[in-house]
C-alpha cells in the first residue's frame, strides 16, 4: 500500500484535529479526492501524510514507512500546500532551482528537471518571470511544478483550485489527470465538491476530524439508500403531483410554481417508470433536475447525521 493509516489521530494541544482514522490507498497512479468543509481535518491529514507532524496516536505509513522527518519518504512525495503567497520579486526559475536542490537535485539533472516540469505545467517560456508578474493560475502551476521536480510517486495538493478562474481550473485538472495517467498517485483536498467530482470518482469524506466515508461517489450513494433523493419535475404541476403520489417510492412532495419537487427512495426504480410515462404521453413533463445526485448532496446527507 502506498498510504496506510491505522487509527491515526492528530491533536493540537487540547484540540482534536483528526479523530482516529484508518484507510489505505494502493500503489500506482490515480486521483483521490479529500473532501470536507473548513475545519474538517483535511489539512491535519495532509500534514500527517507529508511528514510535517507525527501522529498523536495510531500509525501513519507512506511507502511502508513513517513519513515524519523521514527523508527516504519525503524524497518520494511532492506537496503543494494551500495558499498563494510567493515573494513578488522572486523569479520562478530561481525558486524552482532552490526547491530542486532541497530535493537533492543538482547540476545538469536539476536543469533538465526544471525544463521538464515547466514544460509539463505549460510555463516553459514564462519561468523567468517574477511571481509578482504572474497571474494566480500561473503561480499555481509553478507551485505544482516545484512539487514535480523530483518526480514524486505521491503528489499531495491542498485546496489547489482556490481562487482559480474556470479556465485555470480546467487546465489544472487536465494536468492532474495527465499526471495520474502516467502513474502518479494524487491526493487532492478541496471543499469545492463539484470540482472534485469532475476530477475523480474516488473520495475520502471528512467532517469534524472524522472520516465519514470512503469510496466512489456511487458507492457512497448506495450507503445512503435510506436517504431520499430530491428531483424537480418541471411541467404541469398538478398532473405531475397526481402521478407522483401514486408511486410507492415517494417520501415527500412539494409543489412549486410550474414544478413539483419530489423526494424518492430508490431512484433506480422510479426513474424508468417516469421515463416510460413521459414517452407514453401520460405525463406533461418538460424538464427534470436531480437536486441532490451530486457530491454536494452526498456530503449534506452524511454530515447531517453527524452534525
Amino acid at each position, binding site marked *: 500500500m502506498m498510504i496506510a493509516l491505522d487509527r491515526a489521530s492528530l491533536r493540537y494541544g487540547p484540540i482534536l484535529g483528526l479523530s482516529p482514522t484508518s484507510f489505505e490507498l494502493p500503489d500506482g497512479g490515480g486521483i483521490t479526492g479529500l473532501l470536507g468543509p473548513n475545519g474538517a481535518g483535511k489539512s491535519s491529514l495532509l500534514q500527517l501524510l507529508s*511528514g510535517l507532524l507525527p501522529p498523536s496516536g495510531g500509525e501513519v505509513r507512506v511507502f511502508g514507512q513513517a513519513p515524519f522527518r523521514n527523508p527516504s519518504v519525503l*524524497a518520494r512525495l511532492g*506537496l503543494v500546500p494551500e495558499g498563494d503567497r510567493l515573494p513578488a520579486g522572486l523569479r520562478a526559475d530561481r525558486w524552482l532551482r532552490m526547491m530542486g536542490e*532541497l530535493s537533492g537535485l543538482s547540476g545538469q539533472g536539476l536543469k533538465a528537471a526544471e525544463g521538464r516540469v515547466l514544460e509539463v505545467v505549460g510555463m516553459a517560456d514564462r519561468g523567468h518571470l517574477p511571481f509578482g508578474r504572474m497571474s494566480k493560475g500561473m503561480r499555481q502551476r509553478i507551485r505544482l511544478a516545484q512539487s514535480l521536480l523530483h*518526480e514524486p510517486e505521491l503528489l499531495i495538493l491542498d485546496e489547489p483550485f482556490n481562487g482559480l478562474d474556470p479556465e485555470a481550473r480546467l487546465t489544472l485538472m487536465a494536468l492532474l489527470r495527465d499526471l495520474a495517467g502516467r502513474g502518479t498517485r494524487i491526493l487532492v483536498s478541496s471543499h469545492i465538491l463539484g470540482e472534485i467530482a469532475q476530477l475523480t470518482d474516488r473520495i475520502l469524506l471528512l467532517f469534524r476530524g472524522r472520516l465519514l466515508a470512503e469510496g466512489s461517489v456511487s458507492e457512497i450513494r448506495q450507503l445512503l439508500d435510506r436517504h431520499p433523493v430530491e428531483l424537480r419535475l418541471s411541467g404541469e404541476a398538478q398532473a405531475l403531483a397526481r402521478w407522483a403520489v401514486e408511486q410507492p417510492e415517494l417520501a415527500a412532495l412539494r409543489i412549486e410554481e410550474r414544478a413539483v419537487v419530489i423526494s424518492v427512495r430508490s431512484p433506480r426504480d422510479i426513474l424508468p417508470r417516469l421515463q416510460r410515462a413521459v414517452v407514453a404521453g401520460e405525463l406533461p413533463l418538460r424538464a427534470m433536475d436531480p437536486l441532490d445526485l451530486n457530491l454536494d448532496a452526498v456530503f449534506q446527507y452524511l454530515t447531517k447525521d453527524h452534525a
Partner: protein
Amino acid sequence: MPIYAPTLPPPPDLHQGQPPALVLMRFDLARLLRQKIGRFFGFAFLLMLLWKVGRIYVDHLLQTNQTFRPVQDFARSVLTQGADFQADLLNPAGYLLWFLVALVGGGLVARDTLYRVRPLMYAHPVVPRDYLLAKLGFASALPFAILLPFALLPWLMSLMLAGTGGPVWVTTPLRLLPAMALSSVLMGALAVGASSLAGTPRAGIGWVLGLVLGTGTLASMVHGLTGNASVQACNPIVLAEAWPQLFMGVERPLVPWLPAILGTAFHLGLWTYVAARRTRPSETVI
C-alpha cells in the same frame, strides 16, 4: 520469444546536491546580493575600511617621515594606540553593522513565515535543524564576513609597511577572529530569534531593532542608576563591542570577562531557543 514490458525512464538521482542548510544559505545570499541594500552598506563599510587602512599609512608616515616630526606627539595624543587601537579596528560592530543585521536578518525567518515556505521545505528532505542552521549560519556569517577585512587588511598593511614593529600587532588576527566570531554569532542569533517572532519582514526588522535598542536602553538606565557596569552584559551592542576589547586585553573593557560570557551565553541560548521553537513543523500551517 520473451515479451518485454515497456520500461519507465530512470528516476532522477536525488543524492547529488549540497546539504540543505548550505542550499538555503546560498539562496539567502543570492537574494541579498540582488538587493540594493547590499550596495549601500558595501559602500559605507568600504569607506570605513579605507579610513582604517589610511590611518595605518598616516601612522607609518608620522613615524618615518621627518617632515611630520613636529606633529608626531600631537597625533599620538589624539589617535588611540596599543590594545585600544587594535580593538577599535572592529568598531563597525557598532550601530551600522547592527542596523544591517536588523535589515537583513529581520526578514530571514519572517519572510518564510509570510510566504508559508517552511511547510514546503519540511515536505522536502529538510529537517528543522537544517533550516535553523541555515538561518543562524547566514545571519552570523554576514557580520563576520563584513568584519573580516577590518581585522585582516590593517594587519597586512601594517606588516607590509612597518614589519613586526607596526601599529597593528602580529598576533592581532588571532585575537580578533574569535572576538569577531562571538560578536557575529550573537548578532545572528538575536536577529534570527527576533525574526522568528514576526509575521512579516518589516515586523522582523522592527523586532530586531526593538530588542537591541530596548535592551540597550534598559541596561544603560540600570547601569546609570546602580553604577554597576556588569549590567551592560545584557546590552547586545555593548557585548559585541566588548569582545574585541577583552581579547585584545584593553585595560578598561566595557564589560568584564565573566559578565560578558554570561551575557553572551544568555542571548545565544534564549534566541536560539526562541527560533527553534518558532520554526518547528508544528508551527507551520499548511
